[in-house]
């Protein structure tokens, strides 16, 4: 009976030790790790960098967990689109700046997501590393991305069933980065047909293998709501900021791929 107790305890311990993989896409990521001045300064730096490059739309990423705790090959934890916009403030003024188009996990329902528009300071509010990944697409791709963002297709390509390690080649589950990838393919191929988008991703996009102990992953899929393996017929692989950058660079669709960090 003692052994049985040990077995149960180990199971519980292992379920608490599920790797973060992408570490989720929570709005503001909970607690603040930097003071408000630091976050405001860093967010404005990122915004100014996008504006200096004349980006009407860009792909940006943040680090919501300590880098050392992310699995091999995963550098950022949340990815979204930054869109140059006319922003109307609550006191009725119109100002130019960037709105961020996110897919966030729902509060209290991490296995479900919704689309949320916020601003750079909201995007970076809960980061644990002051670092932003930036991809500026070519002008042609930016124009097409803007058309998708302004259309119903942006919403229609959202799947609210969430997994941090969603398989980009299937339709069952989606995470923030996969939604960005779907928008990109919709823009590139000028289609809202998700079957066509997935077929093209299978043909041209190389996903990131998820290097996590299979036993941990199996237990995670049983006990942690936003970790699922049911959409992975083989070894798990998922979409990351880096793999999106690699894809766009390979096909000449990225004007710039760079990282903005605290010290640079």
């Amino acid at each position: 009976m003692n052994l049985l107790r040990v077995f149960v305890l180990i199971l519980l311990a292992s379920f608490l030790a599920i790797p973060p993989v992408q570490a989720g896409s929570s709005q503001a990521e909970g607690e603040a790790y930097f003071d408000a001045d630091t976050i405001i300064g860093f967010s404005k730096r990122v915004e100014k960098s996008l504006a200096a490059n004349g980006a009407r739309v860009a792909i940006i990423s943040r680090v919501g967990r300590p880098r050392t705790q992310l699995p091999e090959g995963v550098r950022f934890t949340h990815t979204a689109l930054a869109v140059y916009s006319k922003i109307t403030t609550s006191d009725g003024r119109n100002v130019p700046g960037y709105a961020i188009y996110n897919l966030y996990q729902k509060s209290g329902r991490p296995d479900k997501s919704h689309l949320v528009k916020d601003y750079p300071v909201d995007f970076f509010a809960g980061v644990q590393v002051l670092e932003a990944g930036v991809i500026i697409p070519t002008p042609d791709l930016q124009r097409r991305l803007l058309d998708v963002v302004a259309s119903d297709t942006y919403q229609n390509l959202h799947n609210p069933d969430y997994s941090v390690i969603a398989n980009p080649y299937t339709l069952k589950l989606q995470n923030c980065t996969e939604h960005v990838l779907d928008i990109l393919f919709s823009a590139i191929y000028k289609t809202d047909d998700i079957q066509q988008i997935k077929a093209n991703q299978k043909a041209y996009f190389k996903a990131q293998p998820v290097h996590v102990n299979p036993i941990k992953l199996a237990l995670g899929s049983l006990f942690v709501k936003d970790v699922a393996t049911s959409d992975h017929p083989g070894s798990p692989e998922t979409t990351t900021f880096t793999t999106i950058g690699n894809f766009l660079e390979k096909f000449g669709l990225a004007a710039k791929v760079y990282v903005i960090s605290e010290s640079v």
Partner: protein
Amino acid sequence: MKKLFCMTSVLIAALTIGTPAMANETHADRAVTHGSQAASHASNSAAHAIAASGQAVSGAASVPFMASGVAGAVSAQVGEDLKDAASAPIGQPLPITDETITVGPTPDLAIQQTTTDQ
């Protein structure tokens, strides 16, 4: 019982050895597992820290400047000072506000903060 012991040993080995990428994940694992709990501490939340700084202005709405179908409508609505923002070619440096715009905390955090303040 022997089988159970073997299974336990395998699990211990798997959990102890892991992969290099997972060697230091304890804290992050906790953060993921307890993500919603952390988010419920309104006083500590990142969004509240920004709002409480008094340096951010609420953004009520936003519309992309240059998407076909909406560009014309947006251009017609902007004042002279935003004409460049609406019409500059992609790749040309763009003006942006020096103000910090925020959506503020999510409704579930905002309601908790209101309660705390009372």
